[in-house]
């Protein structure tokens, strides 16, 4: 296992380096001069040059990238702003705050959104999937398939806005979603994020129901499930300990991908419910040509994908002993 982890994390680091490099160099291909935003309405040439220097944009692009890269590991010395500690992702072009602290500040919102919706769509998705598989062909199976089909086809910005319109404005059933740190008020935290969780979950549940249902139907036909029943195991044990075990692998695969997507910042959800998470931050960094912030958000999203890939692959070996970590 250790050998597998080291080899895969090396691969992951390599991929992250490439993603960072591509983003960095592509940034300078975007028309428009970020320094211009850091200079007043009337901006004589010398002041513009000064602003460009303050942002470090006057150095060759490659040098900037190398400095940025080593900044992450060894920290970096900034003229006038002092030392930026080890995981230094640079200072934002807009508010000259260390990017790392802004990311750390916005991450809880995205993490809460991710965890909350993940719990819901896992439980409901897999749950309905199992029931649909067990009650195959019965009315319950039909309802589960229909709702999962519609759920998979619905768009967040449509269903999210509808939920806001009817639940928050028309019937005032629930207050407008907002983020309250879990440390301060756990109930407030759950209440504030309930609507986004449910909306996000509706879309993801659909995939999990369909996936679980089809894999579970296959598993129930497996010989070893029949053996389990022949051994006198109760129906519940047969389903949960044997049949479900077989469905975990495909579920883990799509869960890894979905989770990575959510951690990278659910841009549309956060915009629809105006939650200040990583998604919104990444959009702001694009609009403000804020290179350090953009690099941080892209890297976070890419890291989430890559790390979760490694975790899911390791998980395969845990779920299915036949899988050897090649």
């Amino acid at each position, binding site marked *: 296992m250790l050998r597998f982890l080291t080899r895969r994390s090396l691969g992951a680091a390599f*991929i992250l380096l490439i993603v960072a490099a591509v983003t960095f160099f592509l940034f300078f291909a975007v028309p428009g001069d970020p320094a211009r935003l850091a200079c007043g309405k009337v901006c004589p040439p010398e002041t513009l040059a000064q602003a460009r220097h303050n942002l470090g944009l006057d150095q060759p692009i490659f040098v900037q990238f190398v400095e940025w890269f080593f900044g992450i590991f060894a920290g970096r010395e900034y003229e006038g702003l002092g030392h930026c500690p080890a995981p230094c992702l640079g200072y934002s072009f807009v508010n000259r705050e260390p990017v790392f602290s802004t990311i750390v500040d916005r991450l809880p919102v995205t993490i809460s959104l991710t965890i909350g919706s993940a719990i819901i769509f896992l439980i409901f998705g897999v749950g309905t999937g199992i029931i649909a598989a067990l009650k195959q062909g019965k009315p319950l199976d039909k309802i589960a398939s229909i709702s999962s089909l519609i759920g998979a086809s619905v768009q967040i910005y449509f269903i999210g806005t*509808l939920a806001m319109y009817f639940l928050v404005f028309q019937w005032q059933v629930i207050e407008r979603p907002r983020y309250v740190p879990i440390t301060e008020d756990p109930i407030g935290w759950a209440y504030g994020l309930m609507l986004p969780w449910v909306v996000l979950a509706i879309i993801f549940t659909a995939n999990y129901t369909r996936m679980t249902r089809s894999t579970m139907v296959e598993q129930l036909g497996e010989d070893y499930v029949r053996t389990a029943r022949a051994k006198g195991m109760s129906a519940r044990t047969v389903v949960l300990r044997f049949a479900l075990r077989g469905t975990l692998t495909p579920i883990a695969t799509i869960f890894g991908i979905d989770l990575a997507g959510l951690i990278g910042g659910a841009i549309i959800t956060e915009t629809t419910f105006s939650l200040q998470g990583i998604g919104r931050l990444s959009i702001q960094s*694009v609009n403000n040509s804020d290179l350090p912030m953009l690099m941080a958000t892209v890297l976070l999203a890419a890291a989430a*994908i890559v790390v979760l890939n490694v975790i899911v692959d390791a998980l395969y070996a845990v779920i299915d002993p036949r899988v050897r970590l090649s």
Partner: protein
Amino acid sequence: MTIPSETTSEPAAAIAPVASGGAPVGRSPGQLMWRRFRRDPTGMISAVIVLFFILVAVAAPLISMLYGKDPYTTYGQDRPDLLNEFGFPLLPNGGISSEFWFGIEPGLGRDVFMQLVYGIRTSLLIALAATIATTLIGIVVGIVAGYVGGRTDYFIGRVIDVLLSFPSTLFIIAFMPVLENLMVKPDEETPVWLRATALIIFLTVFGWAGLARLLRGNVLSLREREFVEAAKVTGASPARIVFKELLPNLWTPILIQSTLLLPALVTSEAALSFLGVGMIEPTPDWGRMFLRGTEVYTDDITYLMFPGIALLIFVVAFNLLGDSVRDAFDPKIRR
């Protein structure tokens, strides 16, 4: 170890004909697939809906002529009796009337029905083009990686890994201007197709990796099969092997993936327009209707309902069709 084999023996006089059905008739996989598909009602209904959408997209100008309106004229602004002073339709339900079947757009006052009809054109065209491009690249790269193996396979594998690690939505938003800037010629007007091509290129760049990886897997397993080795033994050229041996076996996964890909691309095109990097005015586009809808929904919910329901039906129909095609093609896979 008695193997019930079929042998004709002399005293066959009193054999009763085999009880079950007529003599089996040989059918090609295509015909088999079509027979199974025809027997599946949901498949047929969804196929009809999808055809309806395609027909509407193709016949949009005809519909516009019959309906008497077009998606570009700002009716609400030209005629004062349609919008109130805040730019919202006067009549309830988003200004639905005998003249404007689906009502009019707040602000500019364009006809919603025509916007929807022409919107299908935009979404379907881009999604179709992107699907074809993605599938083609996916097939080529997948087969090359799977069949050739060795260093190229390793290299392609790494490229796929890197591509799948990019946060695609954020990337498209950030770097759409780059692609646009490359293609724009300073003097003439920014053509409509420019934005569409940029979208297609981006959607394809981030789309093909998944399919390529899947096909590579299939090719790897197919390559080991006897009939491929047999072909090699007979001295078949690699090209012949790929086209005559491998490709026919890959049609099923390819078709299954592309039927999944098309609705997904329609939704991502709409999402990109919703985020402001998709098609620009005045090309009618569902995503942009959503964006406008979410701006005015508190005062005019009906305007948001139309693109919402239309896209929902569109994608459900496609998903259903995809399910039925998959089922007809490969009944073993129980959804």
